[in-house]
């Protein structure tokens, strides 16, 4: 028997290895092809595209979407979806801004401002995490379909934002805070630093930790996962909380960049985010996909937006072109993936 198993295996293994390689890396290679072609085209069309400053510019602009899309990827991997990210982003941003602006009741300001910023940020992120957890709870405990649960949250959180801000922006939050969104550190924009770190953590979680494996398992076959002793409900609640927290961080970045919390921030961000996830090769039915794929999905979208403006395509045509290019990108990827 043994000899036999080996016999079967020997021709197979090398093949297998890169099949396996596929699964882990393929998606990445995939999106890279489309991304590469896209960049190539833009470089040829505009000499302004492939410049250091423009690349930083693109990266800074997509950092928010990437930030949100990390959480979205985890959610989608569990075969869920989160439509509330945009509203949670707005609410957390507004809360942080509000606390920063009016929330300082300490004697010696300049001593405590640093602390206050940190405090305001923490509260903002906590609020995002909490709303995310609520999503998770209504989905697991009350069995509400993720689409409905998070759609409800989308409306509620937007309403709360309006109530908290009264519908008016909260502006001029001070340079220290602005730095988070607009500053540079070691020649790299601060938001890019932040998202990079978040991406690395997310990759680590998905590839190396138990939580990561559980997320894939639940998306792949929920009942088998439950029978294997995985606490499905807890994992899902955690995942939605993470998504909420990341949306909140996204909110901080937006607010900091604008030096102002806009009550209508983040409207329809959920679409961009899900788009990044799906273009990145993650399946909406769960169980398959990768953070790195999502990052590339986000980059494709970002590069596209940037390119269309560089070429000063008229606002009308932009949408047409954008849609077609995205379609094309995904088709190219499919064509180049041995994946069913």
């Amino acid at each position: 028997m043994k000899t036999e198993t080996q016999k079967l295996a020997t021709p197979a293994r090398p093949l297998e290895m890169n099949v396996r390689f596929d699964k882990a890396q393929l998606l990445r290679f995939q999106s890279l092809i489309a991304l590469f072609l896209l960049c190539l085209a833009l470089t040829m069309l505009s000499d302004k595209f492939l410049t250091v400053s423009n690349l930083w510019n693109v990266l800074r602009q997509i950092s928010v979407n990437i930030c949100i899309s990390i959480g979205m990827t985890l959610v989608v991997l569990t075969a869920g979806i989160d439509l509330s990210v945009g509203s949670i982003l707005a609410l957390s941003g507004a809360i942080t801004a509000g606390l920063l602006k009016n929330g300082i009741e300490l004697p010696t300001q300049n001593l405590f401002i640093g602390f206050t910023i940190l405090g305001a940020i923490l509260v903002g992120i906590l609020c995002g995490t909490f709303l995310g957890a609520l999503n998770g709870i209504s989905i697991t405990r009350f069995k509400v379909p993720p689409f409905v649960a998070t759609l409800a949250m989308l409306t509620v959180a937007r309403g709360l934002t309006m109530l908290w801000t009264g519908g008016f922006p909260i502006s001029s939050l001070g340079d220290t805070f602005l730095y988070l969104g607009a500053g540079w550190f070691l020649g790299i924009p601060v938001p890019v630093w932040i998202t990079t770190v978040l991406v690395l953590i997310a990759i680590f979680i998905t590839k190396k930790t138990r939580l990561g494996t559980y997320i894939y398992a639940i998306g792949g076959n929920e009942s088998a996962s439950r029978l294997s002793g995985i606490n499905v409900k807890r994992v899902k609640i955690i995942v939605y909380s993470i998504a909420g927290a990341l949306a909140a961080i996204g909110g901080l970045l937006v607010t900091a960049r604008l030096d102002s919390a806009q009550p209508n921030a983040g409207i329809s961000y959920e679409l961009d985010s899900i788009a990044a996830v799906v273009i990145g090769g993650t399946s909406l039915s769960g169980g398959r996909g990768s953070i790195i794929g999502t990052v590339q999905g986000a980059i494709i979208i970002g590069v596209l937006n940037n390119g269309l403006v560089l070429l000063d395509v008229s606002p009308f045509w932009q949408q047409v072109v954008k849609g077609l290019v995205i379609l094309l990108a995904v088709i190219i990827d499919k064509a180049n993936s041995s994946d069913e």
Partner: protein
Amino acid sequence: LFGCKTKEKKDEANKVAIIVSTLNNPWFVFLAEQAKEKANELGYEAKIFDSQNNTAQETDHFENALASGYDAILFNPTDADGSIVNVKNAKIAGVPVFCMDREVNDPDAATSQILSDSYSGSVSIAKKFVESLNKKGNYVEILGMVGDNNTWNRSRGFHSVVDHYPDLKMVAQQSADFDRNKAMEVLESVLQANPDIDAVFCGNDAMAMGAYQALVAAGKADKVKVFGFDGAEDVVNSIQDEKIVATGMQFPAVMAQTAATFADEYFKGKRDFPKKMPVAVELVTSKNVGNYVAYGAKK
């Protein structure tokens, strides 16, 4: 039964519906709240309806408002043409409609229209624009929502002046949906393609602030002149600090209060209202900014 219905209607205080195109933009929030305050002050029940920039939803609001027996409508249309039907229906139902800020293209549908003249407003901005660039330079135009007719009123008014100066070159024209963040990102990218621009004209103040932020980030804030439209708080302050050159001050408060007062007079029996009552858009610059506050003149 019908009789008693009307009778009980008599002793009810009159109710006023305030239907605005969107509350996703502080400008309209302010407009709506001013109208509400004034109406309450005059002793009427008032309720705000948000059409969310969706004319169909506006129609729903009209129907619901008429169904639930409102006696007058203070109206900020989503669309000059699309909203005509709604106003007409109200007229048929015998409910007066007073338009605020935005016009409906029908001379006698509305009882009266108190309008902010976006076109001539941006004409005067354009004049300032030409002057402060002294007739030459590269500029960028950032449009509002391409589906919104104020976007085009402003763009047209602006170009009706600026296009007469061949040395003023528009190097990019992009839309940012009246949104601060979008405006910033768009301009960031535009700056990549056109590093040496001299001015940016924005379809509203939210976008003007976004544009300014982009310029700061690119270290060009002092070289490039930014122009807005609205007279929003951030921009009025920025003009004070000479960060932004000029904006067109609209007077939402004035428009809203006038509309509410007209409704009051209507209830009291007055019928002959000016069909159109333009409220001038005033040019705000660092010279006269002292006379203004957010969305209006200093009292």
